[in-house]
């Protein structure tokens, strides 16, 4: 527990917790980053699953910078929100579930990137996604939307 108490006692933690603008500002950024990340990564996953076949599959990697921007915004704003009340958040099952879902979602995104985009970069024409690749895309959607749900429920559930 020592670390968490230290964290929320740092000037950053105190600033986010006690200033009038800190918490709502980073919450707002967290919502915008969420839309960015889920919008772009969600679309890539849906395309792998065969939705919107008029989008060239390999070219959907053009959406990755936006997904990374959203992820970075949310890692930063999320860390700052966590800092403001570290003991409280760490004690919540919903928060821990959210973190696990994000790790799973991250692993999935890396796997999907290897399968779908890496060979394309080497100039190999892409075959239609294999069933196992589609499972990765589907579970990715489940993990990321699960993270949104778990995150929203932190305020209401243990």
């Amino acid at each position: 527990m020592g670390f968490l108490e230290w964290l929320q006692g740092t000037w950053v933690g105190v600033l986010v917790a006690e200033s009038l603008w800190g918490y709502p500002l980073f919450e707002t950024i967290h919502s915008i980053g969420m839309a960015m990340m889920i919008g772009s990564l969600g679309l890539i996953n849906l395309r792998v699953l065969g939705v919107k076949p008029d989008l060239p599959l390999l070219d959907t990697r053009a959406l990755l910078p936006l997904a990374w921007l959203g992820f970075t915004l949310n890692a930063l704003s999320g860390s700052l929100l966590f800092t403001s009340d570290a003991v409280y958040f760490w004690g919540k099952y919903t928060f821990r579930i959210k973190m696990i879902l994000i790790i799973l979602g991250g692993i999935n995104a890396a796997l999907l990137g290897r399968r779908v985009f890496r060979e394309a970069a080497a100039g190999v024409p892409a075959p239609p996604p294999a069933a196992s690749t589609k499972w990765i895309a589907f579970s990715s959607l489940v993990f990321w939307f699960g993270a949104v749900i778990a995150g929203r429920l932190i305020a209401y559930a243990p």
Partner: protein
Amino acid sequence: MEFLVWLENTAIANAIRTIPWLYPTFETGHYIGLSLLVGGIMLIDLRVLGFARPLPLKSMIGLLPFVWAGFLINVLTGSLLFIYGATTFGTNGAFLLKMAFMVLAGLNALAFDVSVRRSGGSWVAADRPPSLVKGFATLSLVFWLCVVTTGRWMAYL
């Protein structure tokens, strides 16, 4: 005000207040709708402005059904959340600003749609959005981000 009081005392509002988990469920639905609506709008606007050029403009504008789905989810969940605390939300400065930004975003989307139809979609096929349309896309990004921001600040103002 009388209308807000009436709204807050309807059977639906009472149900949302008394049945556990209803309010958090609608709020969660509102966030999922937000991801679809703002995520989709953002992709379309950014593509019009030249981001992710390898993806065909026409296909990206074709993401509109996702945007509409998100919009409908959020009108529904948002209305339910509103009647739960109509007298509080209806007099909240941030909420009123949010509604104003939604009207602006709606009018802007209408202007965007009219420009697409007037041109017969020729700039869509040629992937050359006129600067007027790029202006609409920029305004759309600004208005929707303002909708999210003012919505988020409702709890604090």
